[in-house]
């Protein structure tokens, strides 16, 4: 595949099916449903044909890593992901404010 020009997904418009999300992350079906109920994963389309924004894929992989490496249950994953999201939002805000300070 040398010198193949690879075209990435369109992050804004692209969605993945539930099966793909499960296969790519290693999360279980029940876990994904619960994380949707917790409001941590937002689906693009609900049952019967669940789809998710591509962004959810990286969240799901992160959830599975945290589960495996720390032995978290679904509530633990939901809490950790919520905090991480909040930290990232705060870091973004910090960057924004820092760019307004004189150098």
């Amino acid at each position, binding site marked *: 595949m040398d010198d193949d*020009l*690879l*075209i*990435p*997904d369109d*992050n804004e418009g692209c969605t993945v099916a539930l099966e793909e999300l499960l296969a*790519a992350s290693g999360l279980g079906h029940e876990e994904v449903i619960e994380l949707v109920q917790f409001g941590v994963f937002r689906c693009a389309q609900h049952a019967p044909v669940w789809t998710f924004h591509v962004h959810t894929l990286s969240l799901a992989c992160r959830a599975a890593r945290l589960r495996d490496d720390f032995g978290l249950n679904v509530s633990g994953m939901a809490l950790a992901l919520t905090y991480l999201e909040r930290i990232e939002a705060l870091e973004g805000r910090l960057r924004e404010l820092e760019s*307004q300070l004189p150098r």
Partner: protein
Amino acid sequence: MKFKDYYASLGVERDATGEEIKKAYRKLARQYHPDVAKQEGAEERFKEISEAYQTLSDQEKRQAYDDLGRHGPGEEFHPSPEWETRFSRGGGQQEVDLADLFERMGFATGGGSRRQAADFPIRGQDVEVATELSLEQAARGTEVSFSLSVPALRADGRVETQTRSGRIRVPRGVVEGERLRVPGKGGDGIAGGAPGDLYLEVRLAPHPRFKAVGHDLYLELPIAPWEAALGADITVPSLDGPVAVSLKPGMRSGQKLRLAGKGLPHRRDGAGDLYGVIQIMLPERIGEREQALYRELAEASSFSPRHHLEGPTTDG
């Protein structure tokens, strides 16, 4: 094969109990887990910790590891022939790494490893490459070349590391930290499993003028005191060339001048904004004539910038 001291990786004694190993792992995982820690080298360190824990937390693997004896870290060593026939498939090839051997042991025993036996499809590994783009490249879109190592399965069932290279089309409008996913271009699947995905993580290189925050750009905009007081027609740089702007009279330091749509473009249409952050500057030296004018200004003005700091505070 290079020896790795798994006990040292976890910072425990060789006779540590399973409980002590778990405790040490948890403490280090919290400290170095790449999803939690941001410090340099955390990811590498976590891999080491996790590799050590995979082996030491499993009674059978730990026993096999202990049977290897003691060696210095990085020291070349050869497992006993018995060990090799037990855990290694095929002969003589010593390019494998200790972790691969233990992983294969997981295959052989069906033990508690995250990876399962290869008699049903296993999806390939996701791989990630990072790239640094200039703001101009991010705004226009570009192509980046990459080269990465992916685990691939050889015909004889051994895992080997392959180098792959190629180019990825980066659409316009990417922002700092964005991860672009190329489906199916990660590691090979095993036993008919789907291939993993390739991720390109975008970093924006520091720009001499602009700081990017999402799609918005910030620019430090120095102006002279009289421009601040009287207003002025000035030229402001933007990613697509200079823009003429009228400053209103009475600008203050820190005030933001918003140039709508002059930030980084969005993927489809529209763009972020460019903010000029006003800094009122004085020259390093002011000449006699300027000093005289400032003195005249000081006498003529009744402005009291510290009015609100006068007198005692009410809450003492």
